[in-house]
């Protein structure tokens, strides 16, 4: 609701520009925003998962079960469930209403990454260390179905992604990506509508592919590499419409690069952290990018800074860019006939008033969605 009243140019900006907040709750290895962007899940190196309320920047829920570092997190579209994978070889499905694990699967090796199938709560894909990626159905609590997804030459499955958000509810087929490039491939990121993907490989290059309709053909669109500094990229994320892409960088640069994906041009370098950044996540609705620091494990947040318009405080003033010559209007100092004025006011008051129907979209064009609200508990004490 507030966006409609803010500076439209600031609201329309495609990516954040300023470091606004740092959060420190243990050593964070993974960060993930929920779909609405009002909660941030942070996985810690000791296996704890912390849910942070974006408005207060305070922890709202702490989930403890994993005993080793969290490797990935995945929110359900409704915001009530969270899937987590850890180096303790376990994948947990959490219900945030109770804060308990409702399903879990133990694998034979550590897990690089897991991702929920958006339309099915109990289905997910996982990438395992030194093994094929798997598709898992946990509907049956005692007997989870695990299907191996065959890949041609198994080296290591680094990352899986499930494609398609809410609009592809029926097609629950997960798209898993594995390409045997010349160099060691480390990471992929698939855009949420499943149209584009980016592959981060060990040769210090990001390759952006367009995915064909049958999920079989990939057409390379862009290649990103820093020829001067020879930077290796850590983690990559698309913006909501895949028009932009951000990546954290390995080594001493401490920056996040943002590219425009149509032309492949670098548009912004986010600075401000004093350490190397590992995991990044893009909060589309709040236009905010979060990244974890390697040395301190802190979470850095970049957002759009809205300028205060002082004319909002004094509505009879108007903000102008430069001085303009004053011209008296025809009726500016006329004594207006009060009867006529009240007639006009009466006419204005005939307008229709609807106090029920809510706006469907916010000023950034995202539909308003109802997302699960985690209950505030005051008895837990401070954490």
């Amino acid at each position, binding site marked *: 609701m507030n966006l409609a009243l803010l500076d439209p140019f600031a609201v329309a900006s495609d990516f954040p520009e300023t470091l606004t907040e740092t959060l420190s709750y243990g050593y964070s290895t993974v960060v993930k925003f929920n779909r609405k962007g009002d909660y941030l899940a942070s996985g810690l190196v000791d296996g704890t998962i912390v849910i942070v309320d974006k408005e*207060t920047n305070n922890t709202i829920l702490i989930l403890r079960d994993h005993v080793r570092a969290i490797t990935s997190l995945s929110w359900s579209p409704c915001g009530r469930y969270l899937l987590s994978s850890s180096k303790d070889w376990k994948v947990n499905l959490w219900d945030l209403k109770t804060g308990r694990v409702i399903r879990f699967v133990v694998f034979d090796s550590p897990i690089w990454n897991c991702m929920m199938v958006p339309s099915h709560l109990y289905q997910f894909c996982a990438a395992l260390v030194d093994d094929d990626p798997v598709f898992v159905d946990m509907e049956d609590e005692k007997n989870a179905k695990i299907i191996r997804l065959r890949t041609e030459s198994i080296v290591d499955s680094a990352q899986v992604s499930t494609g398609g958000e809410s609009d592809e509810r029926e097609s629950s087929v997960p798209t898993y990506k594995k390409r045997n490039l010349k160099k060691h491939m480390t990471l992929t990121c698939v855009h949420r509508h499943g149209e584009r993907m980016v592959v981060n490989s060990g040769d210090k290059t990001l390759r952006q592919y367009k995915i064909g309709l049958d999920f079989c053909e990939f057409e390379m669109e862009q290649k990103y590499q820093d020829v001067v500094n020879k930077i290796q990229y850590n983690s990559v994320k698309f913006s909501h419409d895949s028009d932009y892409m951000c990546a954290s960088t390995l080594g001493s640069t401490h920056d996040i690069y943002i590219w425009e994906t149509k032309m492949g041009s670098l548009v912004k370098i986010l600075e401000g952290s004093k350490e190397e950044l590992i995991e990044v996540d893009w909060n589309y609705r709040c236009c905010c990018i979060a990244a974890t620091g390697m040395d301190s494990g802190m979470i850095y947040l970049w957002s759009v800074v809205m300028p205060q318009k002082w004319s909002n405080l004094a*509505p009879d003033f108007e903000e102008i860019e430069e001085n303009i010559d004053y011209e008296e209007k025809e009726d500016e100092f006329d004594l207006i006939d009060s009867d006529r004025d009240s007639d006009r*006011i009466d006419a204005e008051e005939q307008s229709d008033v609807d106090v029920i129907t809510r706006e469907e979209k916010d000023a950034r064009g995202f539909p308003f969605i109802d997302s699960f609200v985690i209950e505030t508990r005051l008895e837990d004490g401070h954490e």
Partner: protein
Amino acid sequence: MKLLVSTVKVSPDGKWLATASADKTIKLWTLHQGKLVRSMKGHTEGISDVVFSPNSKYLASCSDDLTIRIWDVVNGTTLKILKNHTYHVNSLKFNYKGTILISGSSDENIRIWDVKRGKCLKTLSAHSDAISCVDISFDGSIVVSGSYDGLVRLFDLDTGQCLKTLIDEERGSSFPVSHVSFPPNAKYVLSSSLDGHLRLWDYMKNRVVKMYKNSDGESIAEKYCLGADFVTYGEHRLVCSGDEQGRIVFWDIQSKEIKMVLKGSDIIDPIMQVDVFKHGELIVSVSLHGELKVWQATDVL
């Protein structure tokens, strides 16, 4: 003097009623039997406002002793005491998640509190007189405030910036604003001024779209800050407010006509608060001298 009551609120789960009084206590009643459950003591001065958290587990109260207390409804203990205001605290609201509490005070500031930590996150200082009332939009993004300086201001909760200032220039009203609230879709602002009228603002256009007046040219309120609210139950589209003559008046939002008048008190006594539960299926009113009434919409509308 001991019995003067400032407000009544229904809990969101429909179990409880809470009344706040100048005798420094909050009284908790069951809504259906009207039984007094508990009298909560702790404040050292009179209490101006109480509000339930969205999960109905907690109750926040603000007092002339400069503090806000958060109570556990089930066992009546104080969980948090929020201190920072430097004068009487007049009005409170929770956001829909229950994570944030906003308060308006006579020290001219609005404060935004992190409920869990019990800390003040932001102070909004833009008014130049006591703040009588605050409200928050359903999505928790906009704060509206009414002040005795005659202004209604809208703030961005996230940044704390002032988004709009509403002044009724055409009618020349700079009377103190005694009440503000958002309708269910938060596209308008309802305000009550001590010139005795209610105004409905279209804040995007900076103007008053409806003005509601009491019958016979009498004013609604000139002295007390009386609560007003929207009744949107079923097909009804009404605005309701108590007046200083002990009546509860219902206006049609669209036509501004008075649809109904209820007797909130048997004597001439201001109706301090009308609280609307489930969009108006139940309406609860309380008068300054403590006459508490519960109305069922199906019976009266």
